[in-house]
């Protein structure tokens, strides 16, 4: 198929160019584009038919911006959509295939071979892919390039402070005020990050699904200010935390949320304990507990705050928190607030953990040597910068021996890991009730916001009373609650009342009135249980794919395939990547700070633009700057092919293929994808 260059191939494309393109677009000159238009129109008609209740005044498919959905935007969109396969599939669906999703949000993939199940093979020890060190010249040049930039930055500061005083005023004491941020503290931001600021905080619009609409911008003063060009670029989105593809403006979840907004509005009116508790909160909490397979659960309106407000309710002075060194900032924040002692162990090093446990238990509290009141080990299920999983089987053994309490932060793993999407416990086949605290967020896999804590009823009730969330923080809003309920029910599948009449009514009862509800739930069903229809809000529209759970299974199996394919594909190409094969987070090591910006720009300005996340110090160690891909169930196999091809080309230019071992050409990897994914050990 002849493909024309993307109209806005470069970030700083001037406005005039796009006007020109728009004009030429109205002509639909070639036969290919005509055919595309027809198939697109077909797909659109289908989508509209399925989402008949949609009130959207704009066509469901054109993801034009909020304020003005003028025809101009639509034209701009469609002109672009025809060539790159981002908004409409390159090959139109056959008559037997019916896709109900919008291709730009959730890709059409009819091939049942491109499915896999994310599961730890029982009986084998868990091991992450060994971390490979790059050649020494890479490390050396990385250090040199940091040194260079730092020296240059200091030089510029030195000169600037003397000759361009105005620009430095906020960094220097002035008029009796100390500087708001000292030049030392902000040096890294001003002199290193600013250079590549075009790769961060890129404004976007529309659904952050399979593709994302970038609002183009440029800078004339070396990234100090960014000027929007007014144009947009649709790019393949391999950056958003959208593991199960629930970021959708259409489909059953969005329909449910719409109904809830019409019914409830957007406000929940205050804190949970002060008149901000709705029936939806209780339904969502009961459903989360059921989903996780624990006795009870509580929810909080912000993921970060779930950790930072709840950990102080768990531990205090005289307690010890043992934390993985790469734990998320919210955990550290919460631990600092709690006043407990903290010790860290090397990332995922179980021997180090055991050594540390033996030391701290035998030594007791510092100076006094009194025994610790309790020891809480906090690990993340899936580490968001490494792609590694907590070594749960070993931790559970250690837990038995050393009697510590275990807190697993499943912010990234819940929904994304395990044959049933229940997170790392599901992946490793560990009983969720043997973990004391299962924490997770709704932002990532469920396309909502906020977080939850699941565990024993006594613990959760204590946290309701003693954590900060319920007393002081605003409660979760109804639309978010509905998205949580709908997406979770979609993964679980729904038991309709006729099939199982006896088990359901207890759930509908309010928790405050009956303690048996939670107990009955954990006994009656083995994990993973389905959601009884009576546990869901009665007004919620249910679609058939939600009820039979096929939607959830479809998403889980596609994500598992995509994750394994990209992980192994990149390794076969010769890149150094971290993490587990089944991890939907794939970090690819770049090392040099300079390569971050170039990698990001090269990916973004390709013919099919791809947006990537580049991270460096302080989120990672100094030398291991990396690009992080977040896969989604919404990606099709073709999308991963596009990413692999792009990485192959860019990696060649940037000299990134540093891993030893056998390499395959990219086309071979693409053609043998299914084989690569299904092999127990990487071929």
């Amino acid at each position, binding site marked *: 198929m002849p493909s024309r260059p993307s109209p806005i191939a470069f970030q700083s494309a001037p406005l005039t160019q796009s006007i020109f393109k728009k004009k030429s677009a109205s002509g639909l000159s070639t036969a290919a584009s005509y055919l595309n238009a027809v198939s697109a129109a077909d797909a659109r008609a289908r989508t509209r038919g399925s989402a008949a209740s949609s009130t959207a005044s704009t066509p469901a498919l054109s993801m034009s911006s*909020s304020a003005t959905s003028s025809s101009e935007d639509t034209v701009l969109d469609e002109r672009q959509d025809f060539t790159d396969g981002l908004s409409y599939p390159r090959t139109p669906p056959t008559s037997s295939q019916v896709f109900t999703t919008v291709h730009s949000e959730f890709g059409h993939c009819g091939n049942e071979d491109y499915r896999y199940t994310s599961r730890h093979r029982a009986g084998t020890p868990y091991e992450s892919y060994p971390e490979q060190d790059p050649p020494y010249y890479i490390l050396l040049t990385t250090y040199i390039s940091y040194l260079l930039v730092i020296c240059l930055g200091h030089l510029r500061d030195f000169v600037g402070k003397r000759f361009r005083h105005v620009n430095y005023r906020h960094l220097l004491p002035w008029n009796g005020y100390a500087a708001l941020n000292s030049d030392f503290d902000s040096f890294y931001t001003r002199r290193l990050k600013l250079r590549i600021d075009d790769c961060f905080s890129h404004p976007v619009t529309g659904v952050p699904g399979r593709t994302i609409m970038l609002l183009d911008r440029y800078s004339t003063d070396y990234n100090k200010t960014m000027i929007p060009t007014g144009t947009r670029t649709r790019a393949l989105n391999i950056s958003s935390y959208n593991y199960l593809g629930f970021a959708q403006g259409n489909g059953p979840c969005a329909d449910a949320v719409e109904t809830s907004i019409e019914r409830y509005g957007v*406000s929940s009116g205050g804190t949970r304990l002060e008149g901000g508790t709705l029936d939806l909160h209780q339904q969502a909490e009961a459903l989360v507990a059921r989903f996780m397979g624990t006795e009870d659960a509580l929810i909080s309106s912000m993921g970060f705050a779930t950790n930072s407000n709840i950990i102080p309710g768990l531990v205090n002075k005289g307690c010890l928190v043992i934390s993985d060194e790469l734990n998320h900032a919210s955990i550290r924040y919460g631990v600092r607030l709690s006043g407990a002692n903290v010790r860290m162990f090397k990332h995922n090093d179980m021997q180090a953990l055991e050594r540390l446990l033996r030391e701290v238990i*035998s030594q007791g509290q510092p100076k006094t040597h009194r025994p610790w009141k309790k020891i809480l080990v906090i690990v993340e299920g899936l580490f968001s910068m490494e792609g590694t999983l907590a070594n749960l089987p070993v931790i559970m053994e250690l837990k038995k021996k050393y009697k510590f309490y275990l807190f697993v932060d499943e912010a990234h793993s819940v929904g994304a890991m395990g044959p049933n999407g229940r997170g790392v416990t599901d992946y490793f086949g560990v009983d969720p009730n043997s973990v004391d605290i299962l924490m997770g967020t709704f932002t990532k896999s469920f396309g909502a916001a906020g977080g939850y804590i699941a565990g024993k009823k006594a613990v959760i009730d204590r946290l309701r009373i003693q954590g900060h969330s319920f007393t002081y923080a605003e409660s979760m809003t109804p639309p978010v609650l509905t998205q949580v309920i709908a997406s979770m029910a979609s993964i679980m599948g729904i038991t309709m009342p006729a099939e199982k009449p006896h088990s359901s009514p207890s759930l509908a009862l309010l928790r405050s009135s009956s303690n048996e509800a939670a107990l009955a739930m954990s006994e009656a069903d083995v994990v993973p249980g389905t959601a009884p229809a009576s546990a869901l809000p009665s007004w919620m529209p249910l679609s058939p794919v939600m009820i039979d759970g096929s939607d959830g299974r479809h998403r889980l199996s596609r994500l598992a395939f995509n994750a394994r394919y990209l992980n192994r594909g990149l390794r076969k190409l010769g890149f150094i990547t971290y993490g587990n094969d089944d991890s939907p987070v794939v970090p690819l090591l770049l090392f040099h700070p300079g390569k971050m910006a170039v990698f990001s720009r090269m990916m973004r300005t390709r013919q099919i633009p791809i*947006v990537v996340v580049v991270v460096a110090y302080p989120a990672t160690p100094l030398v291991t700057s990396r690009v992080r891909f977040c896969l989604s169930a919404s990606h099709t196999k073709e999308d991963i092919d596009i990413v692999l091809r792009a990485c192959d080309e860019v990696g060649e230019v940037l000299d990134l293929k540093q891993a030893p071992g056998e390499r395959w050409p990219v086309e071979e990897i693409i053609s043998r994808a299914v084989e690569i994914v299904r092999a127990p050990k990487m071929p």
Partner: protein
Amino acid sequence: MSSSLQSLELLLAFLSRSYTTLETNFYKIPGSAVVARYVKSSHQNDPGRTLLEVILIIFAIRTLLQSRTRGDQSGKHFIQFDEKEIDELVEEWTPEPLAQPLTPQEQADLASVPVIVGPTGPKPKLASGKTVINLASYNFTGLAGNEEIKASAVDTLRKYGLGSCGPPGFYGTQDVHIRLEQDIADFLGTEAAILYSQAFATISSVIPAFGKRGDVIVADRGVNFAIQKGLQISRCTVRWYDHNDMESLEHVLETVEKERKKRRAPLTRRFIVTEGIFDNDGAMADLPKLVELKKKYKYRLILDESISFGSVGRTGRGLTELYNVPASEVDMLVGSCATGLASAGGFCAGSHIVVNHQRINGTSFVFSASMPAALTVAASEGINILRNTPSILSTLQENIRAVRAILDRADYITIPSHPASATIHLQIRWPTLQLPMHASHSSSNKPSNPLSVKPRDPPQFDVELEERLLQDIVEEALSQGVMVTRAKRLRGQELVEVRPSIRLAVTAALSRKDCEKAASVVKAAFAKVVGRRR
């Protein structure tokens, strides 16, 4: 014997060979000759110095290699155990349970939380089936359930989906977030604003973004829990002034300045942290005086308007509008979209420098996903409505006056709240006979110690008793069809115990008559519960 000698010879040869290569390579490096000459001559002049320098280098290397975690085995408190002893100690150790089971009192507390079935609003339906007048939920301007807001939220949902699926740095910044930030800044009249996804997490992130170790913060003794947590995280030097007492503030500012001059300490950042309308008692800060003092002593002002934004001022812009103080005089103005705009999230408004600094240093901004687009647009729409409908705020103020008119004169009730405050705190006023006699010796006008958060003469009250009575009042009012709530506090975790109170949140969505009716019910409940005890 000979073989070992041979190997030794080989080793020596290898060593000398490697030494020569090293030497030649070393001299190939430009400038190395100078270094070598320097070392030689310094050794000649003073051999002791060479030794010293070698020791220094070894020390430096050792420091670099040393593990950075605290409490390593070299500490003087470390006790050496052998493996068996450790096993025994591990065996012996029994931890406390992770969570203490709830006491019956706590269970009752949790069970007494009212559950709203269906939408919240001025007259929601409770789980008991009863429809009640709602003076508990935050809905000052009656935006909850507004049809225009609903419509734009649904519209946004269809275009953006629900979640933003990423932190602001990584493709989580959507155009709607930029627009709401701009809307807030325009509404308040500041240069810029930054949006956090939870109001409670906002100020506890703003304070540590600016205040670092060694900086000075002068804070009110009555600040809310979120500010307390922000102060704790910031590790600043905190000085306290008496609750809402501007003289005390000036006195503390004076002392801090004197202290600094005495110690000849370098200039550090200095902040005054306080609230617009206090969450704990509804008192209102004297903003013009605060601004005057902050300018005089060259402090920056961090003002938490979580309660006052969206509830006072002609159009709900908060204290700055009420006192006619330009918002740009407040360096960091923190507010809540969840409370003030009946949506979600919080914000900090200020200059470009202040806002941009937080985009990298505001912990809960950087590490959290941005707010769902639908809620963001709902907040934008809320601002729009407030801006165009000043009658909402005048209705709210009328309702507040109506409620106050009834409760101000009531027996058994003390109201510490400002007459214009939409949150009205009702404390128990004990009949004079039962009043613990603490007021008499507070006449000594010695100021409180700014180093301690505790005031000199803390008011005495029986938390447990008052909370129980207030809960009885809440339930009594509920049985009469009025939903009110105790101001819930984490006892034992607040820096200063807050006097228990019932917190009313007046709303513009109720008619004046309903407000009066509700206030009368509350008044009667006080009389019934507290009066009965006499």
